[in-house]
């Protein structure tokens, strides 16, 4: 359920920021899909629908995704279907059903920093930046550790196609994933990101270094390192042991995909 006593409806990002500063506990209501899962009654919510942030476009050799663009908007944006093998579109396409993706916003999906996010590993792999009202532009990797109360305005993805691949493992189609991952190869440099451990997606630094140094010859070592250097835990979707085993196979598949 989503219960609240008052709705604040800013018309500009500045106004929204002011309201967010004055109402420290008020959640920002974007698509509202995840807030539905809570049980709290909020004294107030800040409705982001009036901020004119629903857009997906190409601009100055970047893809620009407004915070209120829905996952469906991204999925249907033709240039993104072609970019990096459609990795960003793949990152949203498996999320529940069409009607859910027509509501869930990109801003809500990123700002929530959910561990089970399908889209964040894809955005990490394509080196997306996030623009916030107060903090300005920052890499999504920095944003994952950004703790200020701020308004996410847009996501900017440099149109720099390099081999990237993502994977989300699920018990069944339409379910939450129990493990997510992405990989980027830029020349000889590899970056491996693992999410849903069930923590938020994180760079596997040692696995990435081994792959950058040894390429395909380091694949088994990198898979092992990815299973050891990050923290894995159990939740209702998978045990810690299962995740640790599955991540090894996932890393091998991802490396092979970007090496081709």
């Amino acid at each position, binding site marked *: *359920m*989503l*219960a*609240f*006593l*008052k*709705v604040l409806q800013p018309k500009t990002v500045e106004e929204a920021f002011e309201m967010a500063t004055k109402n420290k506990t008020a959640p920002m*209501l974007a*698509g*509202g*899909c995840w807030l*539905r*899962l809570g049980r709290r009654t909020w004294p107030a919510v800040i*409705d982001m*629908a009036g901020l004119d942030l629903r857009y997906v476009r190409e601009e100055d050799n970047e893809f620009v995704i407004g915070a209120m663009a829905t996952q*469906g908007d991204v999925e249907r944006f033709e240039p993104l279907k072609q970019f990096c093998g459609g990795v960003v579109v793949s990152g949203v396409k498996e999320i*529940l*059903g*069409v*009607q*859910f993706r*027509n*509501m869930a916003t990109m801003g809500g999906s990123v700002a929530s920093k959910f561990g089970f996010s399908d889209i964040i590993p894809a955005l990490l792999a394509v080196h997306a930046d996030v623009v916030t009202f107060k903090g300005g532009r920052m890499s999504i990797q920095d944003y994952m550790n950004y703790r200020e109360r701020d308004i996410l305005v847009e996501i900017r993805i440099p149109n720099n196609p390099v081999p990237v691949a993502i994977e989300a493992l699920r018990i069944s*189609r*339409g379910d939450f994933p129990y493990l997510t991952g992405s990989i980027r190869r830029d020349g000889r440099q590899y970056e491996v990101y693992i999410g849903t451990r069930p923590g938020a997606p994180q760079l596997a630094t040692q696995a990435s270094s081994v792959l950058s140094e040894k390429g395909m010859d380091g694949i088994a070592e990198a898979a092992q390192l990815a299973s050891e250097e990050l923290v894995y835990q159990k939740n209702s979707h998978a045990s810690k042991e299962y995740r640790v085993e599955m991540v090894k196979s996932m890393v091998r598949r991802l490396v092979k995909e970007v090496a081709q």
Partner: protein
Amino acid sequence: MELVLHINGKNVTVNVATDEMLLHTLRSLGYFSVRCGCDTTNCGLCTVWVDDEITLSCAYPTFRAPGHKITTLEGLQEEASLLADCLASEGADQCGFCTTGMMMSAIALKRRNPNASDDEIREYLIGNLCRCTGYASQLRGVRKFLKGGL
């Protein structure tokens, strides 16, 4: 709060609580094709169209609805009737509880892409949970509907 909603081509004035969701508003107005299942954006029973896009009305705050075109199955009677025949002829009716939400998805698919492949049909049905049929009969029914009916 008092709002004017545009539902199935008509303007309707409603008085709703601040946090009321469109699902409950529509049902209170007598649009009973819109059903309440999980009430947490998972099952698809409450599917309506907002500006012709399939949307889960259980998570759509009513205060956002003014200025948007809301469509329920009651507003799509001709297409709904044909689709219902197609589903029934393929044994896809069973308990019927999920059917209205599923019909909203199937009709939206036909309007967006009348030549949809089986994979695209499945893609549109994933968001509508059915625990009777296993979806095979619905796939056949929707396929028939896209081809123009019986």
